[in-house]
């Protein structure tokens, strides 16, 4: 059972488990999104490119980060959706990099749209194995409130 809206406090910090991003992940993601750009999928193309080698899709960091956050089990039965999300890309992810995610609760507020839920604002920083920041950003999620009575 996860935490309810009332149980979160601004300032709480968590660190996720880590996950190595493999060639299989990137090719699965290319297959899923239909984004087969050669910067992700052609070693020959990338030799002449900015990084000299294939890199993961920018979007993959965001989706893997959310998976790592889900696996913190903070909101297992209480998560009710994402309101918004924003980020900056800082560094590429190379195949074989290991990501982990730092989560900080920034604050909370009522939801006008869903009175049985509240909104939690999160700060999310994905780092690689050298503790370099890959993406940093924030966003609001809906979390269920405790039932009355």
């Amino acid at each position, binding site marked *: 059972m996860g935490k309810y809206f009332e149980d979160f406090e601004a300032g709480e910090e968590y660190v996720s488990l880590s*996950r190595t991003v493999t060639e299989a*992940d990137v090719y*699965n*993601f290319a*297959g*899923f*999104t*239909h*984004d087969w*750009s050669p910067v992700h999928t052609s070693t020959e193309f990338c030799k002449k490119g*900015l990084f000299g080698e294939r890199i993961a*899709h*920018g*979007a993959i960091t*965001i*989706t*893997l980060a*959310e*998976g*790592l956050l*889900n*696996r913190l089990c903070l*909101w*297992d*039965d209480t*998560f*009710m*959706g*994402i*309101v*918004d*999300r*924003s*980020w*900056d*890309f800082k560094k590429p992810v190379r195949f074989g990099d290991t990501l982990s995610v730092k989560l900080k609760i920034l604050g909370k507020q009522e939801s006008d749209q*869903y009175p*049985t*839920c509240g909104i939690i604002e999160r700060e999310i920083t994905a780092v690689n194995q050298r503790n370099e920041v890959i993406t940093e950003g924030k966003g609001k999620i*809906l979390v269920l409130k405790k039932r009355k009575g």
Partner: protein
Amino acid sequence: MRQFEGYFEDFSPDLEFVSPSRTITEGDLANYVGISGDYNQIYTSDEFAKKSIYGKRILPPLMVFAVATGLYGRIQGLQDHFLAMLGQSWIFPNTACVGDTLTLVANFPKKREIHHPDRGIVTRHLKVINQRGELILESEGDMMIGRRLS
């Protein structure tokens, strides 16, 4: 009609691009949940989702985001001289479900030159709508785009 070439100079606020449409299937959802590790019950359990605020399973909002990145890439020319994505922000005003058909609409409201002579920054504005015209997500972000060198 001249094909859009995707250089910095070619982007203009007058242009609007519409992607191919894509029907999202149970297979897509299973793939996404598997790849991402984001297997929350509102996406993966009918019994749980029936009692939720949505009354049924929804697609992960970030799955719609991931689909959007692919739909963007399928619009001819848009990514041909793409160098890097800078900051971006996304809002998710409505949820989508398995069986929905999604389409991406892209506009480029502004752009600016920078000190590098071979590239510039273009702001892109994206919307994903479903088959009923409902807005599923909306995004704004800046991209580094290569310039046409003479």
